[in-house]
């Protein structure tokens, strides 16, 4: 090593971490937050593929995916509130927001998206709710009355208006879902102090992985619910979902690798920290798990399933497996970005470690509770609004 090489001398790294960098501030909760919002955005895209782009094969899951999105959206703020040091002040973000803060936008974007999603569900389910209200008694009758927004008019004219509103809501819902998740990517992408996060590709990668996780989540839950309730699975629907999953995953995986390759190729002074990170603390979770097991294998599985027409039983056997692997890939990606980014000390000379504990405020147990909660909420929603009814109140599947 020559003394004259300025870069070399700075690079020569003994493991030194800034004293305040030992602690990883954004832990499991902030891993879950983009994961959950990603599932929401992705599920909404599935619904929009039917409602806006008229992919008819997706009709069986079009309504279910909206309820799936709602269940997860309800829980999206939970990890954030649990993470905040002073959760009782959370509403300050909406009441006295700092306009230059990316984070301050979350309340507004979340609320607006919640309203659009809720309205779309109300209008799509209105004829069904009207039919259910006639049969219901007691509390359920009142609830269906509220959900039908006080109108039991199901005349063709009224339904035509409903469809116009639904199409409009779904249409504005797509850019909003993209904003919701692209924005989550920007929360990380806008942090120039962190070389792993600070890339304009971050919103795009987050958005694509959101679509991927949403579609995969719909496939897994659709097949599992149908299997357990003994209903017939619409193979055409699953086949189409798999094709979309493959399409989105190609883009997602390629951009993830391109981002890394760009860092490697440009080799700015940040690269030596990133290189140390990817070859050190992130080697197992990134290269082995996220890329090796949960990207490459599903990539080829999805390719075969999309290009070759297998027997239905084989398709339905592999579809939930490959979808589950994709869900794991996205979760690992969130982990590697959120936690991985914080492992590098800003000293550019070393990395800290992070091991989540089972029972702590932001520990594994709480994380599991927060991931199970949407499933429970979805089950409750299923008791009120049927997943598989079509517009006329007939079982779709």
């Amino acid at each position, binding site marked *: 090593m020559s003394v004259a090489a300025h870069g070399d001398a700075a690079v020569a790294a003994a493991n030194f971490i800034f004293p*305040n960098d030992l*602690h990883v501030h954004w832990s499991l909760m902030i891993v879950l937050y983009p994961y959950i919002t990603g599932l929401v955005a992705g599920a909404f895209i599935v619904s929009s593929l039917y409602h806006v782009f008229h992919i008819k094969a997706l009709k069986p899951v079009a309504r279910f995916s909206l309820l799936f999105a709602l269940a997860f959206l309800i829980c999206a703020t939970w990890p954030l509130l649990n993470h905040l040091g002073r959760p009782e002040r959370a509403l300050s973000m909406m009441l006295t927001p700092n306009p230059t803060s990316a984070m301050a936008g979350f309340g507004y974007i979340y609320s607006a998206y919640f309203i659009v999603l809720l309205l779309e569900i109300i209008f799509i389910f209105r004829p069904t709710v009207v039919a259910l209200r006639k049969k219901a008694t007691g509390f359920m009758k009142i609830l269906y009355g509220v959900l039908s927004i006080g109108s039991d008019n199901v005349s063709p004219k009224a339904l035509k208006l409903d469809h116009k509103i639904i199409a409009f809501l779904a249409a504005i819902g797509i850019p909003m879902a993209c904003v919701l998740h692209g924005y989550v990517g920007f929360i990380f992408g806008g942090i120039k*102090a962190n070389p792993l996060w600070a890339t304009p590709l971050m919103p795009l990668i987050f958005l694509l992985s959101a679509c991927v996780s949403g579609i995969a989540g719909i496939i897994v839950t659709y097949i599992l619910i149908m299997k357990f309730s003994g209903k017939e699975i619409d193979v055409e629907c699953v086949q189409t979902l798999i094709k979309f999953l493959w399409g989105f995953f190609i883009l997602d995986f390629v951009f993830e690798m391109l981002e890394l390759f760009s860092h490697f190729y440009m080799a700015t002074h940040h690269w030596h920290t990133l290189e140390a990170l990817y070859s050190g603390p992130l080697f197992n979770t990134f290269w082995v798990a996220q890329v090796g097991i949960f990207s490459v294998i599903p990539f080829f599985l999805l390719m075969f399933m999309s290009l070759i027409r297998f027997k239905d039983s084989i398709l339905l056997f592999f579809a939930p497996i490959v979808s589950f692997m994709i869900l794991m890939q996205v979760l690992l990606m969130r982990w590697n970005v959120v936690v991985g980014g914080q492992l590098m000390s800003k000293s550019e000379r070393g990395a800290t470690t992070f091991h989540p504990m089972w029972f702590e405020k932001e520990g594994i147990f709480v994380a599991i509770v927060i991931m199970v909660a949407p499933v429970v909420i979805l089950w409750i929603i299923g008791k009120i609004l049927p997943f598989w009814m079509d517009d006329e109140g007939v079982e779709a599947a």
Partner: protein
Amino acid sequence: MIDIKKEIQKDRRAFIKNVLSGTIAGSLLMVIPAGAALDERLPEQLPGMRGDDSPFTEKKFAFVVDVTACIGCGSCCVADKNEYNVPDGNYRTWVERYIIDDHDEVFVDSPNGGLDGYSKPRTDIPNPVRDTFFVPKLCNMCEKPSCVQVCPVGATYKTEDGFILVDKDRCVGCGYCIQACPYSVRFLNPVNRTAEKCTWCYHRVREGLLPACVNVCPVHARKFGDLNDKTSEVYKILREPHVISVLKPGMGNQPALHYLGLRREVV
């Protein structure tokens, strides 16, 4: 004189009474510090601050750390911890030790943030040591602070006279500022669960006193002053042809913390 004589002649007894009571009261005032604040008994260290009652001063403060002077005694860290009761394991300021061996390998450490001083040499350096120096770190008081930009509720803000402060009664404890700070000077106070960092002792500065760490530095490695005051030491240092640098200039944050004799190995 004539007036006094007249006064004495008017009522000699009353005059003696007045003189006596005045003397006793005056002596008592000297013994009992009636309402005199502590800082008013300390000499003013920053000229012109005592009389300034405006919300923000017209001054332009700068901090200069002389890397060539620091001896790594850790006094500044101790003063800081005492001034703010900083919880263990968190650091508003710290001192790093740099050692460069004759193979140009750089070894950096900062055990307990340098709080205990560097009284013992490192024993794990494989080659003969070529050079060694200490680098104190603290808030950079950026002209373009990332922490202020990202704070979602405006709890971290920049005063008109250039100080970046945290309102612990508004902070939501999200940690975004900690992620955004390129210098890692922030931490989440485990007691009140809000963000905290060095303030350049804003409360002392407003009372005309130097920051606590500057005050205690035995070798004058930490310097603080007003750049609008052409007689101030920091003004002279930044105007004269010294080797002056800031940390991570490429970040574009434009720190008001300057380093005199900063080495290229320092990040």
